[in-house]
């Protein structure tokens, strides 16, 4: 029996050592230079939960925040990923426009995919321009009927939305998806602007009512009043908490809070910083540098 215990001890210690070695070698391989991509991000893209649950957890983590492009009209539900892209990712097309086929489409399971994130590029500029156009339209309508409270509220909301997009929310946009990293990198070669990250994608099917814009009662039969929105939605994997190494904790804690918040007048409680975030060969991120943001 004692001999058996000796084998168990060797096997247990060996297993622990082996698993730790595999994990650490994987980390070293991921972080070998050159990095797959390297982005300069601010508190707009990296949300800190510093202070929350700090009493029980002395570690500091930052969450990578990215956004999906908005639709032109921004009304109702719409899929983040088009049906064509979903088919490219390996999802099966619905056999027909009937409810049963569409139900089968939407119950396909999530699949792994690669997401391309663009930092402060054309996709972000388009978002700002859309908000600017909506604000201009809201202002025009308000001028036509200055006493209308609803139009005044809409104009204020549009102004707040524009300000938020220009000043506060993330400039990191999902611009493409795929299964092959090399193909995506060839399409987006700038490693300072485009990061490829791991994610997963789920089909999306939503039945949406089409508003009647004609005169009088809606004469359309039922099947023409509803339209199926088909596509997908996705999210990244493992970017919900990026570890901030202890050597930057002191600087991070001392960072000033402030800046203009999205609601035009409120002061922000976000700490202001610039982070260099690298993504390695396994597309896993790590923080390379942290500095105070002075402007």
């Amino acid at each position, binding site marked *: 029996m004692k001999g058996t215990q000796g084998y168990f001890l060797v096997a247990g210690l060996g297993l*622990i050592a082996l698993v730790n070695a595999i994990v650490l070698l994987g980390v070293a391989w991921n972080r070998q230079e050159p990095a797959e991509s390297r982005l300069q991000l601010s508190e707009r893209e990296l949300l800190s939960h510093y202070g929350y649950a700090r009493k029980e957890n002395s570690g500091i983590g930052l969450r990578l925040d990215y956004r999906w492009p908005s639709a032109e009209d921004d009304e109702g539900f719409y899929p983040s990923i088009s049906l064509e892209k979903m088919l490219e990712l390996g999802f099966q097309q619905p056999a027909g426009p009937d409810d049963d086929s569409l139900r089968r489409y939407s119950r396909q399971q999530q*699949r792994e995919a690669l997401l391309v994130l663009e930092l402060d590029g054309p996709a972000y500029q388009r978002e700002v321009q859309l908000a600017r156009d909506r604000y201009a339209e809201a202002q025009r309508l308000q001028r036509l009927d200055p006493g209308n409270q609803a139009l005044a509220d809409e104009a204020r909301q549009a102004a707040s939305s524009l300000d938020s997009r220009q000043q506060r929310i993330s400039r990191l946009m999902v611009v493409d998806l795929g299964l092959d990293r090399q193909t995506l990198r060839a399409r987006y070669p700038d490693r300072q602007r485009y990061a490829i990250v791991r994610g997963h994608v789920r089909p999306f099917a939503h039945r949406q009512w089409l508003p009647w814009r004609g005169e009088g009662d809606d004469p359309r039969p039922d099947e023409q009043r509803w339209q199926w929105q088909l596509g997908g939605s996705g999210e990244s994997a493992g970017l919900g908490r990026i570890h901030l190494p202890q050597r930057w904790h002191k600087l991070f804690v001392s960072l000033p809070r402030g800046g203009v918040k999205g609601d035009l007048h409120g002061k922000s409680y976000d700490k202001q910083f610039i982070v260099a975030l690298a993504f390695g060969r396994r597309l896993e991120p790590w923080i390379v540098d942290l500095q105070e943001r002075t402007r």
Partner: protein
Amino acid sequence: MTLSRSDAQQRADDIGVFNRELARLEAEQVLSLSDDQRARLHGHQQQLLASYRTAFDIDHDNQARQLSLGMRVASFFGALALAASLFFLFYQFWGLFGEVSQVAILLAASLGSCALALWLSRRDGSGYFSKLAALLALTCFVLNIVMLGQIFNITPSDKALLPWAAYALLLAYACHARLLLAAGILCLLAFIAARVGSWGGLYWLDFGERPENFFPAALLVFAVPLLIAQRRYEGFAVIYRVFALLALLLTVLVLSHWGEASYLNYSPALIEGGYQLLGFALSAALIWLGVRRGWSDVVNTGLSFLVIFLYTKLFDWWWALLPKYLFFLLLGLIAVLILLVLRRLRSRHGLFAGVGQ
């Protein structure tokens, strides 16, 4: 043959039963031992019991047995509390250390707790402290891998389940700890189910959304005690079988009410009906198998699920249709019918007849 703690306890219990029956036979004047025979018998028994107490810390009477149960409960809750404490302790202070120190602390905690658990298992005849230490060792290893993932932002993966399962099984066999065996089997079931899902191109964390992923895992776990004898490890074969059957029958139960989750490309109503039939057939087959092989755990699991399948179906059919008193009366009558069938089975086959492990 090497004597285990359970063998020693069984022998001690048999001695107690033998002495009580001997006293009865003497009182009824059926049997009478001479003083010399009595002295030799008593001396032999005391020598055996003393050696068992020294080697295995066995329960020598009913009072000791009740205290042992209390110690087992205290050991279980103590182990859970210490594991939780260890988890929170690390979270409380890990931010104060650099990455190298963090890795060194995690590795040292894993290696140290493993050595401690195995050292204690040699010295602790009762097993209470070594099992507690073994659960702590597993917690340290799980924490080790989880924290490495957080420190280095490693993408979450189902692959972590495999070393956890291997380590839990290793500690379970080293310390004869059934709780760790159950933990190891659960990790193994989750790993195989996630792998089966991934081979079909699915995101691994979604393995629960297609319950059929658990079928291969359940069959594999059920086969383990058939392929590898567990005679030296009391209760291990039962744990394997019960967890495998839970994975199998719970999956069937879920699918019998959630046809949408199936891989099968038929209408949900048809899938649910099919799985309801399969649930009845499987439960009945398991009762038959359990009776045939003398596995009381398989009979009880099969019987429990047969009743669950039956009652859920009766609920679907009659709950809205019948007055409540009639509904519950029918349930009661069905329970009586099951009792009658089982009594008939027992009298015909002498259910289990003392076989099986």
